[in-house]
């Protein structure tokens, strides 16, 4: 039976539940103060692609950590049946020995080792003298790379290939371990459309080779396209498991958030005021490569009560533009002028930018946004700490600090029992809210939000959109950078398009269509000037 299902054509759902490769029964996992998983059950049929979706903090990752032995046997209740036998994994190696391989969202590759070395890391190919056989290593790596469609020299260092290709290396590494059940956590979150398409095609191919996949994703369209079965988890409970063919966007969203969501983008109705911030002829050079222009004579402005979107493809210079404006945090030889309410201002340091009412919510919260060693309150007050410092001795009022943090916890509904908890105990969406809270506490007039909804789920996205609306209703000016066109169009009043560091267009929302924007975003460098 198992032989047969393994050879089924892609897209053919194995009949019934006769050949179940994995069953997780009544899994309950608690952390002090939080029930992360509450009686979750999951059934995966051999040879299928099984998608798991749910809001941030719903328990998806925890479930996968239980499955792979990161949370060892005995720290949870319930049982795991893998290939007909109860599995008790005490560490990751135990689950890998059975053919379960998990690929995390943050890839676990060693940057200065080659592709081949990474594929066989901890699983080296030896010759008879028990030294590494490099010919065999590279040849076998080449074969595995061919299976995942990665065309590179196996001796290329990992750091020199893009994220999409690194993802393929991870899958090749899993294949080298004779994987039976492959778990992918948000595999396409950091990929562009091309790479995503390739990856999904590859997963279909693996399915045809009899490899079962569990995939966690927020991209609902993608899930419906590829999954044979979709299980929705909410608040640590299984809500529903449905065949992929029966899933609709509305049904999934309803399951995930537990309510009907009539609109994905909340509407707002407010007047747009006077100009608050204007940039003229902004030019930025690469920090280490002399002569490389990253932003070329960019000009833009934003008004009070207005949301301005900046749309651009990967490498267009969106983050570089934002960070260079925010106190010259990026780039060299920066020229151009910045005006706040018509008055020219110099924003040479982050301190000056903050003092002039600018705030920048960065794209990568773990790298640029948070101090992961400390607690929630310290992160919230990190940028606006001056407001808590007493005049007499220059001491921080730590009681007032907790009060402030509690206020933001309530206002942004950050899910935590206490603001004294470690920031790492929060889910991604809640960590993002902490970063936003940090900047709101500086009381800014101009907020630059760089990919504010990356890697967070539909419900949390809606909360962020609602928050943006509240901000502009208070008369603040908001600049949103996003790689998702529907998002830019859903929340902006006006959109600038960016291509190769050049502002190629300014489109009022009434005139914006995806085609028009995409045209402007893909203008070649020669054509724009």
């Amino acid at each position, binding site marked *: 039976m198992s032989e047969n299902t393994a050879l089924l054509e892609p897209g053919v759902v194995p009949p019934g539940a006769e050949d179940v490769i994995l069953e997780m029964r009544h899994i309950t996992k608690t952390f002090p103060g939080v029930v992360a998983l509450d009686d979750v059950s999951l059934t995966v049929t051999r040879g299928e692609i099984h998608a798991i979706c749910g809001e941030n903090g719903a328990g998806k990752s925890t479930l996968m950590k239980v499955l792979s032995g990161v949370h060892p046997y005995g720290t949870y209740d319930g049982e795991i049946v893998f290939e007909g036998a109860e599995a008790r994994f005490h560490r990751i190696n135990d689950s890998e020995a059975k053919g379960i391989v998990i690929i995390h969202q943050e890839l676990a590759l060693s940057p200065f080792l080659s592709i081949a070395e990474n594929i066989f890391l901890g699983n080296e190919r030896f010759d008879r003298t028990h030294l590494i056989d490099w010919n065999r290593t590279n040849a076998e790596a080449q074969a595995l790379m061919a299976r995942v469609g990665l065309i590179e020299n196996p001796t290329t260092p990992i750091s020199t290939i893009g994220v999409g290709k690194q993802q393929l290396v991870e899958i090749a590494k899993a294949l080298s371990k004779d994987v039976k059940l492959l778990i992918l956590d948000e595999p396409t979150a950091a990929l562009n459309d091309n790479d995503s398409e390739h990856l999904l095609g590859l997963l279909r191919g693996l399915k045809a080779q009899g490899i079962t996949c569990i995939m966690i994703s927020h991209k609902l369209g993608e899930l419906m396209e590829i999954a044979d079965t979709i299980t929705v988890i909410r608040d640590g409970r299984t809500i529903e498991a449905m065949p992929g063919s029966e899933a609709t966007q509305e049904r999934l969203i309803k399951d995930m958030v537990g309510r009907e969501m009539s609109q994905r983008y909340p509407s707002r109705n407010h007047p747009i005021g006077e100009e608050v911030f204007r940039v003229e002829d902004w030019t930025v050079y690469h920090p280490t490569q002399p002569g490389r222009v990253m932003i070329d004579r960019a000009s833009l402005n934003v008004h009070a009560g207005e949301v301005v979107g900046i749309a651009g493809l990967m490498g267009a210079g969106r983050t570089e533009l934002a960070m260079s404006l925010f106190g010259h945090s990026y780039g060299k030889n920066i020229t151009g002028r910045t005006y706040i309410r018509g008055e020219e201002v110099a924003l040479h340091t982050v301190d000056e930018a903050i003092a002039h009412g600018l705030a920048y919510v960065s794209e990568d919260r773990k790298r640029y946004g948070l*101090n992961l060693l400390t607690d929630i309150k310290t992160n919230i007050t990190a940028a606006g700490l001056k407001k808590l410092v007493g005049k007499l001795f220059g001491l921080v009022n730590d009681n007032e600090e907790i009060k402030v943090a509690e206020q933001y916890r309530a206002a942004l509904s950050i899910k935590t029992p206490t603001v004294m908890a470690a920031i790492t105990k929060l889910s991604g969406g809640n960590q993002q809210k902490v970063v936003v809270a940090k900047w709101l506490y500086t009381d800014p007039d101009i907020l630059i939000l760089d990919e504010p909804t990356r890697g967070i789920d539909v419900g949390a996205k809606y909360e962020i959109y609602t928050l943006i609306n509240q901000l502009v209703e208070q008369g603040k000016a908001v600049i949103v950078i996003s790689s998702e066109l529907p998002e830019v169009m859903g929340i902006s009043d006006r959109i600038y398009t960016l291509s190769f560091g050049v502002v190629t267009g300014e489109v009022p929302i009434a005139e914006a269509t995806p085609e028009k924007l995409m045209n402007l975003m893909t203008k070649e460098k020669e054509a724009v000037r």
Partner: protein
Amino acid sequence: MSTTTATPLAAGSSGAAQPQSAFVAYLVENVLRRNGILLAFVVVIIALSVWQKKFLSPSNLTNLVLQYSYVLILALGMLMIIVLAQIDLSVGSVVAFTGAVAAVVVVRHGMPWYLGVAAALITGLAVGAWQGFWVAVVGIPGFIVTLGGQLLFRGLAQLTLNYVSLSPFGGKYYGISNGFIKGWFGGTGFDVFTVVIFAVAVVGYAVAQWRSRAARLKYQQEVAPLPLFILQIVIVAVVAMFYAWRISQNRGLPVILIILAVFIMVYGMVMGRTSFGRGVYAIGGNLLAAQLSGVKTRWITFWAFVNMGFLAGVAGVIFSARMNSAQPAAGVGMELDAIAACFIGGASTTGGIGRIGGAMIGGLIMAVISNGMQLAGLSQGIQPVIKGLILTLAVAFDLWNKRRTSVAA
């Protein structure tokens, strides 16, 4: 008890918890787990006082302060450097160099003691500014800059002293590390003044703790249960007064103890309650995030090194005063004692974590163990062996304690 459970956070856990179990839970959660190193210190003290009868004698308790104060002073600055994810390997040499400068001023040129102190401190500040420039402005890792500094300032110390020791300082300079305040309020067999100063300090401590607790309650935060709070005050008071009573039977209140207490209080405040201290922790925790939050990372790094130089100058004065001479080989290996104190006290080798209180206890653990071994007359070879083992085991224990109590995300 009603005041103690007035926290909104604890209320949700299990309804009306039994006072008894809440008390025990708080004790385990907040006292034992977070203060593993303090408990280790207490165990070491008890073990030493059983092993060596002389350990708790008035003269030994006085000597402890005199012998190890400079390591504690250095650890104050080193903690800041280590939390920044830097290191300073030069402080031993700077101690020698600043002591040498003081000796030239006081001994060779016969100028007043305070000019010697000022010269040493200014030298320390200049050394710190030199190293801070290379680390913060140019961006060379502190390890490299201060490794160079270790050689550089050792050499300068030797040149300044012309390869021989300069002595004696005598007078008031000598008194910095060897002076006592005694007899102001009289007393027979013991010094009333010493006891009174300690009593005032204990009362001040109790009042400060009470006010902090009241403020936390006002802001509806979790506080220690009242009996535990009182117990804590009583324990501190008993220990402090016992110490005061013992040393008052000897030579009275060491000047150096007052200097040390002031420094510890000031640096505890700087690291725990000022935006400068917050900046230090933010830089060590995530440099990029700190920069993007408007923390002046270079400025803070620069001043942390200047401060380390200053404290090395202070330690240089204290050490040379204690020895009553400046020696070319003074302070060799002292940086390692200061670094060890920080790590035993729970600082992280990768920055971002570490407390002044922890570093002080770490330094005291090293101090009492060295002292105990000297009292027992252990051989020169065995002492570093034991210190090395303690450093490794203390950090291992701390790591184990953190892993045990931390919750996986």
